[in-house]
């Protein structure tokens, strides 16, 4: 018994224990969020269904003629992608805040910034990637030529990275507010405008068969800026909301 207690005593000093690196902890959070999402598939399908419905409504409401739809396709695709991404944002941190998981992250001795970055990465994998894969299909229905599809896929994939990162700040800021959807939209939509402009421009150039590298690079720059700052800002906002 004495040996057990002595061993236990030594093991209680966390400084003597092998540490989990910030990256390994973040990877575990990512794996957990992906597993949870696949067990609650309805939340996965919602943004995709919304995107499909919005992009289908335009041909029905305006005209089925591809010559009419093609010029408006970039705007339709990007407005629908932006609103679909926004739809899933409210849930990004909410459940974790309600069940005490965020508190545990805040006091686990690991970087909250890394853990929230992992959660945002999971959000992008679950909403951004499916939207990027679906966007070329919707583009074809709106009259985009086959040659434009890689450009559309790349622009939506990069743009949704930026949208998820910007959205994570809004989701963290509105954590303590009930029915925060409207406020979240008001906070994040103005910040999303550059993504919408460059994303729609890249899509338009791809549809017209022109070089779309520059707007794509600008989207990448916004994504990198977001990657650098958004998790820090989200972590600070979560800490304030937990207080």
């Amino acid at each position, binding site marked *: 018994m004495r040996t057990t207690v002595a061993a236990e005593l030594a093991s*209680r*000093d966390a400084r003597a224990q092998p540490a989990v690196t910030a990256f390994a902890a973040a990877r575990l959070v990512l794996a957990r969020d992906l597993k949870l999402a696949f067990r609650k598939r309805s939340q996965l399908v919602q943004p995709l269904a919304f995107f499909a419905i919005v992009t289908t409504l335009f041909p029905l409401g305006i005209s089925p003629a591809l010559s009419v739809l093609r010029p408006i396709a970039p705007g339709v695709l990007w407005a629908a992608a932006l609103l679909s991404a926004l739809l899933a944002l409210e849930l990004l941190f909410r459940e974790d805040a309600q*069940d005490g998981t965020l508190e545990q992250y805040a006091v686990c001795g690991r970087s909250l910034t890394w853990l929230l970055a992992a959660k945002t990465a999971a959000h992008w994998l679950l909403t951004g990637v499916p939207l990027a894969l679906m966007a070329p299909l919707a583009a074809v229905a709106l009259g985009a030529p086959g040659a434009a599809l890689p450009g559309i896929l790349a622009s939506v994939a990069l743009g949704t990275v930026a949208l998820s990162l910007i959205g994570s700040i809004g989701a963290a800021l509105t954590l303590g507010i009930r029915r925060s959807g409207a406020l979240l939209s008001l906070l994040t939509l103005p910040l999303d405008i550059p993504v919408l402009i460059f994303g729609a421009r890249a899509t338009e150039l791809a549809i017209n068969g022109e070089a779309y590298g520059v707007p794509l690079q600008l989207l990448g720059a916004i994504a990198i800026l977001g990657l650098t700052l958004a998790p820090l800002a989200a972590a600070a906002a979560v800490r304030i909301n937990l207080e």
Partner: protein
Amino acid sequence: MTDFDLKGENVHLWRGDHHVLRGVRFQVRAGECLQLTGANGSGKTTLLRTACGLAYPEAGEISWCGQNIRQDLHAFHAQLAYLGHEPPLKAELSARENLRYWIGVRRPLARDEIEQALGRVGAEQWAERPVRTLSAGQKRRAALAGLTLMRVPLWLLDEPTTNLDTDGQKLVGALIDEHLKAGGVALAAAHHELALSEVQSLRRLELAVE
């Protein structure tokens, strides 16, 4: 080996106009448990959250092993386990999966350790069931398994016996006993008497409502 020691000095904290913590002082040393008592709204949870660094006191300081916790909050957090009102478990995952993801963020976990912890709280029978199908008491037991897995010197517990039957309440007492015998420190907000075997290691701090 460090002699662990948690100390609060003249801690003041306001919530809006409400002066919740009014110059609270306490000290808990290795092998001791301080039970926070007081009526609803007296600030027990607030004091626990302040002690673990989640809430910022407007005046006064909390120190751990002689050092203000704010000087290196990450290092302090690595030394503590905080269990709030709600067990931090995901409804769609099993108790076993929850422990793997919850504790795995803090330290590497072997499968055997999880099984041992689940066995310690009597959770073997239902460890594979989704948490949403468990009773409130079973969820609390799963959270207690997580607590034992953290292997940290400081336990901050908010109503650890809530929803537990008599055996469960004895289990909480036994776990705190083991923790204290191993040189740990515990600060627990509890309305009910904590069933510790060695009463001399238990002290009480009563907080009053303003």
